[in-house]
């Protein structure tokens, strides 16, 4: 992601190459990666009971966003939307408010999922290639979220070092900073 290269990001490709293109696309786009990583970290900070009631929202949103993009096209401003959602999720990660309601967690997860699905889905092309690339994208998006969830969950619950949970909040502040800068750059006249 940090090494600039030419990416055939949105073009569907045949076969396994297409799946790989879709899979790695969210890893290589900062707007998607930030928002998805932030929501994963956010989920990882939450209580298990709340996560059990709200975990479905993000993958459901990814599916909805992907289908919407494939059917109706990608709306303008998707990247800006994702940076705004990354900023919001980053704020929640940094602040780590206790005992959030499951409905609120699900709502944010759904929003980020829809945005990620819209951004990660491939452009229209041959049906089979598009389907394979889209499948890879869905897997990639959910993989990032799972990594973030796992890292935050481990840091907050599974270790005896409380400073790791603080480290998650610091990472949240970094996400805020990067997202804020990207929003400013996007809106720069």
């Amino acid at each position, binding site marked *: *992601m*940090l*090494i*600039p290269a030419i990416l055939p990001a949105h073009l569907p490709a045949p076969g396994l190459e297409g799946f790989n293109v879709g899979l790695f696309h969210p890893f290589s786009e*900062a707007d998607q990666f930030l928002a998805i990583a932030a929501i994963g970290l956010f989920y990882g900070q939450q209580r298990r009971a709340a996560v059990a009631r709200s975990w479905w929202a993000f993958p459901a949103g990814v599916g909805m966003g992907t289908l919407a993009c494939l059917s109706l096209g990608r709306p303008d401003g998707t990247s800006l939307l994702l940076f705004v959602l990354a900023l919001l999720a980053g704020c929640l990660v*940094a602040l780590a408010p206790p005992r959030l309601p499951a409905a609120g967690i699900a709502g944010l997860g759904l929003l980020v999922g829809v945005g990620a699905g819209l951004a990660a889905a491939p452009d229209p092309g041959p049906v089979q290639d598009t389907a394979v690339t889209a499948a890879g994208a869905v897997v990639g998006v959910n993989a990032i979220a799972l990594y973030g969830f796992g890292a935050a969950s481990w840091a907050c619950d599974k270790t005896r070092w409380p*400073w790791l949970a*603080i480290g998650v*909040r*610091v990472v*949240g*502040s*970094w996400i*805020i*900073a*990067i997202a*804020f*800068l*990207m*929003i*400013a*750059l996007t809106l*720069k006249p």
Partner: protein
Amino acid sequence: MPTHRTFAAAWALAVVSLAASQALAHTGAAAGGVGGFVSGFEHPIFGWDHVVAMVAVGLWGAFLGAPAIWLLPIVFPVVMAFGGALGIAGVPIPAVETGIATSSIVLGLMIALAARAPLWVAAIIVGIFAIFHGHAHGAELPEAAHPVAYSIGFVLATGLLHLCGIALGLLVGRPGGTLAIRTGGAAIALVGCGFLFGYF
């Protein structure tokens, strides 16, 4: 016992930090433009005026203890981004370099004098100086070949410098650690004076 080795490492780092030659941070477009992640990562690292201030934030936070030890490294990048946004938007902030140099002086003195400011005061002081640092980074961002990677680079570098300061600040629990930290703070303030008066 690791105490003496810890001291040696801390003093070595202090000496290295003080052996700054030229602040190369803000070469920007005049030196051929800025690039991506590496360029952004290097921007605070090779700008000693940034380095000493970032380490001082972590050091002061560790010295103040919880919750400042994590709150200050959270406040700084967030407010820094706001300053960066001002730089991106072309909003002029007067005397940015003076503000950056002054941040080292003030934060260094806070540490040297063992100033135990209330949390909100510490956050405001850190936040004010974060705007100057952010503006300096942000002003170069639109010229970057890869602004996203550049942003990630300098935000990460800033956070890691804070961690260095926190790690050094944990010496406060060691014998002689408080003296070492306060001496480090004085050194940071002196370096800031050097930048302010043009010796570096």
